[in-house]
């Protein structure tokens, strides 16, 4: 019997893939639930959505994708022995993560100033849950990026970059569904 399996061919840490799949399942289920509840009240959801700060969110998408690109390049540079360059790239990636969080913070403060809470409308319940959970992951991701800047073993960078790409991917799923879908 052949003991090797597809699992052995996965790049990076197996447990990181377990985490990534778990995260995608959670956010995927959250988005499906959002779409399901949206069916029960399309006009209410459209009205609620019009209060969102779309420009900021679009800018944040660019911020996060650029940050992801830097993390990917960092791994490449580290493997080709441009160690300092890799560290700088990771530091910039972390800084962009913080930029994302600042813009997110401005967005949340704006909502709070308008008196919008998670109880205002089911739309905002999902809005806060999904983007809030995601923001918590960005915060964790920034910590991870700083950690791998410090302990810059290529395996560490690979695992950290995997996590950061997952955070990126989740945002790319959340942004169109929550902010744009008309």
């Amino acid at each position, binding site marked *: 019997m052949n003991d090797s399996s597809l699992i052995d061919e996965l790049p990076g840490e*197996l*447990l990181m893939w377990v*985490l990534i799949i*778990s995260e995608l399942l959670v956010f995927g*289920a*959250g988005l499906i*639930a959002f779409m399901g509840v949206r069916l029960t009240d399309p006009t209410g959801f459209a009205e609620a959505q019009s209060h969102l700060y779309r420009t900021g969110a679009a800018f944040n998408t660019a911020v996060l994708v650029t940050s992801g690109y830097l993390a990917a390049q960092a791994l490449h540079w580290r493997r080709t022995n441009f160690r300092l360059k890799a560290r700088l790239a990771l530091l910039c990636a972390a800084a962009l993560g913080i930029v994302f969080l600042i813009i997110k913070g401005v967005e949340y403060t704006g909502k709070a100033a308008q008196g919008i809470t*998670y109880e205002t409308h089911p739309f905002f319940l*999902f809005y806060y849950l999904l983007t809030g959970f995601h923001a918590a992951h960005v915060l964790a991701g920034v910590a991870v990026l700083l950690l791998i800047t410090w302990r810059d073993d290529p395996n560490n960078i690979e695992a950290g970059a995997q996590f950061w790409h997952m955070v990126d991917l989740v945002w790319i799923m959340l942004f169109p569904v929550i902010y744009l879908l008309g």
Partner: protein
Amino acid sequence: MKYETQKIAYAYFAVAMALFAIQVIGGLLAGLIYVFPNFLSELLPFNIVRMLHTNSLIVWLLLGFFGAAYFLIPEESEREIHSPTLAYLQLIILVVGTLGVVVTYVFNLFEGNWLLGKEGREFLEQPKWVKAGIVVAALMFLYNVSMTVLKGKKTAITNILLLGLWGLALLFLFAFYNPGNLSLDKQYWWYVVHLWVEGVWELIMASILAYLMLKLTGVDREIVEKWLYVIVAAALFSGILGTGHHYYWIGTPAYWQWIGSIFSSLEVIPFFAMMAFAFVMVWKGRRDHPNKAALLWSLGCATLAFFGAGVWGFLHTLHGVNYYTHGTQITAAHGHLAFYGAYVCLNLAIFSYAMPILKNRDPYNQVLNMGSFWLMTSGMVFMTFVLTFGGTVQTHMQRVVGDYFMDVQDQIAIFYWMRLGSGVVVVLGALLFIYSIWVPRKEVIESGAAETPAE
């Protein structure tokens, strides 16, 4: 038995089995009260019987876990337990505490006393002195096993087991916090009740199961460890925020409905992984271990845990469903099969594996023991189906149509009768198990099987 101090497990398993007998007989009594509501109503009211049934379950499962730890840690870390005296003292404290609880409940002694009286919180109603005793015993236990592991070889199995046992003891500390606000009370209460059975206990379960698979199937340790880490990661990822599925209707904010629904749905995954793990190990394994009873209980554990905890849990975990089924017999169906599959079978598996070794009767294939597995399991599965059907009827009549609780209870009496019947079968199975462990001295062993070398 390679290490002398593994013998400690013998005493723990003996007390656990005695409490197991008390627990199932208590269950039978409760089942009887369902069909004859006034049975023993003065002497031993239903709420007391139920407390005894659930509390003795928890205590004997814990004693089984402690015993399992004392049995497998010396082998894994390749050294004797740090202090056998402390281990026996720990058992004495737990037994005295348990007896104190039983006496206090049954006679309702010292009512209202802050130290000696029962506290009236479901599952955590132990008098404060007993809770303190449990903490002292837990500290002694953790000190003892941690010292053993720290000085010896560290394996994934002992690491995960210790993580689970430390979590178990630390989470129990929430039992001391009893806020006046009922919503807050429930919120913290679940930190013990949920984070035990759907959190740290799963780590204990996975590590004991991994140990059994390692011994019974002879699969490489590396493969077992890889599975173990994946299972543990999946269990903690889903189980911790899965606590939200208890926060639907207790006065906590509405976002818990979605957090609870989504995360607790994923709790099926670790249970599925454990079932897949057990069967894949058996298929891959090259060893034909003579202890077929231990293997049967291990596979039964993984399978029934998947159905009881995983499938039956998912059945009513979504808040839209739970809005109707909350607290009906559906909950009882899930509770019975989940505890039986995940934790009762797990303990009986490690008893079946360890007892012949502890009694120097190895190798041993235990035909009677296997009979008790099928008797107990068929009884429990039948009970689960009966309560599920009864609960479905109850949900419809009581929650959809809006009939009165007691009128509905009369209507579903037939299900309670069938549950009593299945309960009798479970009790017979349990007694047969205990008999098969302690009494028979001769066993038919297939020739050749005994020659397979153990690890």
